[in-house]
């Protein structure tokens, strides 16, 4: 069945051949309904076994703290069956949307088949590996077959940037702030859709977590599977190389006005009381935990403060600095899943504050909460005060 689907998809993608893949990342283990469980269990019945190293994206349960998810018995039972089926197929129970920060890092030019839109953007853009935006079900089919259709972003010609983004009108202070990158990504996705862009004028030492946030936002508001950052990402030592020596089809200039308007659109309400804070989409890294620990020192939060992360990151955190201080300040660490994919937020509803562009994008539809976007510092200050506190000085 898996190979039949791979061949059918290859036909639809107009691929002339299949290529071997080095690894896969599977997004299909999150429960959306009984159809997905039936599909995965069918593959198990057919004695499927992945042919390449394969990591798993988030599921709908926090397996380490099951009480955290308020799901009905059917939802919980089916979520567990789905997660078990993927493990039976030979996938590693990583349960993270940031597999690239827990050791799954394909190398430059390597062909892989990844699902989860942010992971696809990261693998292509930051690592220079090659994957299309594989949808749920197709990712596991490629993993079982060990092959993917040679099409789209697997091909040199489709990785060349056709859009040039000029950021020279944006202040260096804003570009040196984490809070800028989800906004840039949101605008990029809405502006470029699925076109490949090269962004010029960003600092050469951008931390990996900021690129992660950029890609996650761009792949939420658009269909961005690959972006280049001149002087930063591996296929863009400079603008000209990223453009393949050709003239861009479009040049777009980012302005402070566009940045402010995009930032405002990430929120559905602008001020007042908040009911919860959630960060960690994509999943928090150790570095992000260290920043949060520093920022929240001496504070006690008056609203629930959820941090979503992978279980491997939690293990490393526990074996180094520990989590007692964070928990004492009112932080709840959610693993294996996150707050926009399964019911974790208090059922009373209200306003959620976040530093994640992806959470800002999906919170209203998936949780019913209103959302306010701000920096991690803003989230910490607001969680302590119980109302929105944002540093406006950066935004001009």
């Amino acid at each position, binding site marked *: *069945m898996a190979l*039949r*689907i791979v061949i*059918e*998809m290859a036909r*639809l*993608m107009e691929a002339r051949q299949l290529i071997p893949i080095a690894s896969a990342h599977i*997004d*299909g283990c*999150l429960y*959306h*309904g*009984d*159809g*997905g469980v*039936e*599909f995965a269990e*069918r593959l198990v019945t057919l004695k499927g076994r992945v042919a390449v190293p394969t990591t798993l994206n988030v599921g709908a349960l926090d397996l380490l703290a099951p009480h955290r998810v308020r799901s009905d018995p059917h939802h919980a039972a089916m979520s567990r069956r789905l997660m078990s089926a993927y493990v039976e197929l030979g996938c590693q129970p990583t349960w993270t949307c940031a597999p690239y920060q827990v050791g799954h890092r394909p190398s430059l030019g390597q062909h892989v088949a990844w*699902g*989860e*839109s942010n992971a*696809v953007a990261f693998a292509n853009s930051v690592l220079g590996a090659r994957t*299309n*935006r*594989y*949808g*749920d*079900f*197709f*990712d596991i089919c490629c993993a079982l077959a060990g092959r993917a259709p040679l099409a789209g972003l697997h091909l040199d010609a489709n990785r060349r940037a056709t859009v040039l983004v000029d950021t020279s009108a944006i202040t260096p202070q804003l570009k040196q702030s984490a809070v800028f990158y989800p906004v840039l990504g949101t605008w990029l*996705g809405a502006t470029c*859709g*699925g076109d490949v862009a090269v962004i010029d004028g960003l600092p050469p030492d951008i931390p990996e977590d900021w690129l992660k946030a950029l890609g996650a936002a761009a*792949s*939420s*508001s*658009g*269909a961005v599977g690959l972006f280049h950052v001149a002087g930063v990402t591996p296929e863009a030592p400079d603008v000209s190389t990223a453009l393949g020596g050709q003239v861009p089809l479009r040049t777009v200039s980012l302005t402070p006005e566009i940045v402010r308007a995009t930032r405002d*659109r990430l929120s*559905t309400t602008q001020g007042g009381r908040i009911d919860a804070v959630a960060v960690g989409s994509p999943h928090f890294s150790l570095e992000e935990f260290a920043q949060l620990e520093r920022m929240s020192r001496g504070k006690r939060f008056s609203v629930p403060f959820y941090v979503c992360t992978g279980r491997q990151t939690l293990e490393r955190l526990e074996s180094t600095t520990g989590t007692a201080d964070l928990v004492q300040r009112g932080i709840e660490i959610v693993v294996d899943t996150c707050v*926009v994919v399964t019911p974790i937020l208090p059922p009373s509803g209200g306003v959620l504050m976040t530093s994640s562009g992806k959470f800002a*994008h*999906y919170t*209203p*539809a*998936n949780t019913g909460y209103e959302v306010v976007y701000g920096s991690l510092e803003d989230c910490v200050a607001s969680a302590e005060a119980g109302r929105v506190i944002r540093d406006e000085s950066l935004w001009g």
Partner: protein
Amino acid sequence: MGSDLVGRVLIPGRAAGPLLLLDAPISFWGGVDPHTGVISDPRHPNHGVAISGTVLAVPAPIGSSSSSAIMLELLRNGTAPAGLLLGHNDGILVLGVIVARELGYPTIPVLELAPSALAQLPSGRSVSVTEGGSVCY
């Protein structure tokens, strides 16, 4: 019935229903409720509109790679559109239909049309999709 548009057949089949041309790209995951078939993203211009039973024209897919899973559940729950017209095939929505076919669920025809042709379709009018990939209205 008079005008015809011909698209590339991704999944063959026949369908009829009111044409719903979405005013913006959509992510089915986080955008469509698989139980009700209603557009659930409050930021989408067609928020609150039901896609069930329509011939749904999607200018561009965006967002989640789980949109294929939502498509599968829509087909399983009987809340799917009657047919799907894509301005750009990124292989995600069509995949939900392929997997539905593998599992023996009802399927729907899927066509790929040039985005410019898609934009001219008369939203709200009754249209039919033929086995050969024509959209008639």
